[in-house]
């Protein structure tokens, strides 16, 4: 019943409706767009280096790069990667934060101690160095490993927040009521604890989407992560930013798409948060 009501509330909210629409259009662009363009992302047009955008037959809609790649095709290809990375990292790290934090806070005792010890350990480890050391060994492996690494180092602070919120929720009477009903602990965590901290989790997840996309770019810039010839929005923005003044199309398209992506995710997140929170006025 709850999922039905939340969905109805979400669809009633214009903000989240527009967000969902924008997100759907962006996904459509990323995955269907390459088929519409006249060039493939691996093509190199040796007759056109650094061409500005043109709408001629067979022209480069968003211009070309200095090695003759079609910016339209390359950007969309990068966007596919970034969407997958962003969403997976956000889902993975927020999910991990929620589960670890809520379990530690709810169960308490040695489970709490062990989980928080592990959390603090990850928090003090220099994540950038670890990724730098580990990633050469993953060369040739799936880039999904990269997602796992990024997620693994971005959940700890949220997890601590979740734990402290769980500690206060655990004492509330509705949790006691569920316990006295004979409901097992994992169900109480999923059904009562997590929905009550969903506002925090949703904000955290939407922030994580953009943080992962940008973070991936930073790592790629130093030679870890997505490696050429493969591209991501992050690598494209990093490359384009140096020439943003003279050749704005190299920078503007990937950056603009990133902004749109993050904005629409935020809209959906806000809508979901309001839909889950009965206190919000709609």
């Amino acid at each position, binding site marked *: *019943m*709850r999922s039905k*009501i939340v969905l109805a509330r979400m669809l009633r909210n214009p903000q989240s409706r527009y967000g969902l629409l924008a997100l759907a259009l962006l996904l459509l662009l990323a995955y269907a767009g390459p088929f519409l363009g006249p060039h493939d992302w691996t093509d190199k047009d040796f007759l056109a280096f650094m061409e500005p955008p043109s709408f001629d037959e067979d022209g480069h809609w968003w211009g070309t790069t200095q090695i003759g790649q079609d910016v339209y095709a390359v950007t969309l290809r990068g966007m596919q990667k970034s969407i997958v990375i962003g969403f997976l990292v956000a889902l993975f790290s927020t999910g991990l934060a929620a589960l670890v934090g809520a379990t530690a806070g709810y169960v308490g005792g040695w489970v709490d101690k062990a989980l928080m010890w592990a959390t603090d350990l990850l928090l003090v480890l220099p994540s950038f160095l670890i990724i730098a050391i580990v990633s050469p060994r993953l060369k040739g492996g799936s880039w999904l490993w990269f997602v796992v690494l990024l997620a693994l180092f971005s959940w700890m602070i949220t997890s601590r927040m979740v734990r402290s919120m769980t500690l206060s929720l655990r004492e*509330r*009477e*509705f949790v*006691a*009521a*569920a316990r*006295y*009903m*004979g*409901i097992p602990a994992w169900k109480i965590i999923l*059904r*009562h604890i997590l*929905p*009550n901290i*969903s506002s925090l989790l949703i904000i955290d997840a939407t922030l994580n989407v953009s943080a992962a996309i940008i973070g991936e770019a930073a790592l790629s810039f130093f030679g870890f992560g997505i490696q050429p010839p493969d591209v991501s929005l992050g690598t494209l923005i990093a490359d384009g930013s140096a020439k943003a003044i003279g050749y704005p199309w190299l920078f503007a398209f990937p950056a603009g798409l990133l902004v749109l992506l993050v904005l629409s995710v935020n809209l959906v997140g806000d809508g979901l948060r309001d839909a*889950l*929170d*009965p*206190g919000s006025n709609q």
Partner: protein
Amino acid sequence: MNEPTTGRGAPVLEVSDLNVTFRGGVKAVRGVSYRLDRGEILGIVGESGSGKSVTSLAVMGLLPEGAEVSGSVRLHGRELIGAPEEELTRLRGKGIGMIFQDPLSAFTPVYTIGDQIAEAVRVHQKVSGDAAAKRAVELLDLVGIPHPHARAKAFPHEFSGGMRQRAMIAMAIANDPDVLICDEPTTALDVTIQAQVLEVLKTAQRETGAAIVMITHDLGVVAGLADRVLVMYAGKPVELGAVDEIYYRPRMPYTMGLLASIPRMDRPTARLIPIEGNPPSPAALPPGCPFAPRCPLKVDACDDAEPELERIGAGGRMAACIRAHEIDLKDLDGADVYPVPEPPAEAEEPGPREERETVLQVGDLIRHYPLMKGAVFKRRVGTVYAVDGISFDVREGETLALVGESGCGKTTTLQQIMQLSAPQGGTVVVLGKDSAKLAKAERRGLRQDLQIVFQDPMAALDPRMPVGDILAEPLRAHGRKDAKAVKSRVAELLTLVGLAPEHAERYPQHFSGGQRQRIGIARALALEPKLVVLDEPVSALDVSIQAGVINLLEDLKVRLGLSYLFVAHDLSVVRHIADRVAVMYLGKIAEIGEVDEVYGAPAHPYTRALLSAIPLPDPEKERTRTRILLEGDLPSPADPPSGCRFRTRCPKRALLGEPEARRCAEEEPSVVRLASGADHGAACHYPEGVEAVPAPRP
């Protein structure tokens, strides 16, 4: 105290046509007028949200930014509304003193009590630090704090609730204010402590001659204290008059209903008379009289315009009701006007108690908590004897009430029963099954028959869950997965507790307190339990709502054949709802027995003190009855007195001879059946009514 109520000379405080509007157009206070003469006590009563606290904050000029205040407040003829902040600051504490409900948040935790009172003195008077400190000690002595010299150096957290409230009173009267505003000063306190604090308040008034505005929802407190009473509803004064007139001849249907809906300890009735419906939201007031939707005397004209306060009969009494004159003429009271709800059809006469099935048997239950100290290396420094060997049983179709002040172990007892695991000591037997010997599946099965209703209906319902899911949860947890059957059962439950099936799609916060408590009750009944544990189920509700919920509990008990274990601190409610009562003190049972026998002839001195501490909503009785005032606070359960635990506060022990008194200190009394009653026991060496010991008269 008994000065004439009609003013001679100029009033101390005069409020006229006070209006407070909060941002967003919420009219919290609408046209409050009253005058306060020197030494007079005015009681302002009303339910939560009636605007009584906002009124007094407006008088003090303490409302938050964004509140629009209009009208006039005159202290000794000086206008306070719109006065500059510096002038108000000079007046606060000197002209007007205020006592808040929660004394812990009213003191700064990092300064000693003595320093804070001395500061209050020095802000308004030019005296040296030493003199102010001396004055602080005097004030603490005045409000009855033992060893005031030593206690003045203590920090707020080292004081108990009652002591803090006394210190708060000391601070409020430090500069001999002309007006004392008390905002629910005793609501957070236990009854015996409340009786002490009210006594201190009377002393303070005698000493300073201040006029008092007493804001409370407790009609009993006002009855014993006030000279005049102002009743508020939906931000508007609806009745004003001398205390006797309001209590014995109310002329506004709301006041009549309020008085009729209170469970009375002195006059038990078969059925309480609830006021239907809920108070209107201040953001969406009905066009006419705000009480009209709930009023049994409503006529069409009530919706036309909001009635103003007008004089009724002789004297200074006013009422805001277009039919007040008619009520006055016919001399109606609440019982005549409000429909008395049908009593539940008594199923069948239950057999004698001994022959009925025992639903719950608690024997020598013990729960001690270790008292730990140290941050890294924890070591045990003591034991909290939360529950220390209590025994009782609940038979089928019966209500046993567990009463006592906070810290006596009621809630711990409940938790021990609800956990259905082996207790530290003693036994808990539910429906013939010993909780210590349950297999996991058996325990789950037993949970169906044992359900709980919590005190705070807001905290007990998951705010993020629609009501339908909340009610379906116990059903699904116990194997009823069929969506259709669950849905129809949820609808059935909602109807059972007087709500509509379509409410299932709303969230708990869309309901009022009383409705939420009904949802809590519906959840407890979902699995058709045999025993329902009620943890203060009505103490968070307003009086007019409370009556409806109590009636519902009574109906359900008869219709579904339930047994209740009812935990409460309100002895009037207990008298109304319970068949048997167990009085707890510091983890032990002091007295147990049939309600009529315990209330009629209380044998334990603690029970006697408790009963006498309850304020009755009857001014005449309040004035004439003598109170047994207990001294001091509840001892810490970590360090209970030897022998009888009550001996340190026992008023009776003072009257005993030396050898008898020694017995109290050395030998712990156990619950002994009294010869005088059929079902009545007390844990006292010298129970009342057995020996010829004269009743204590403080």
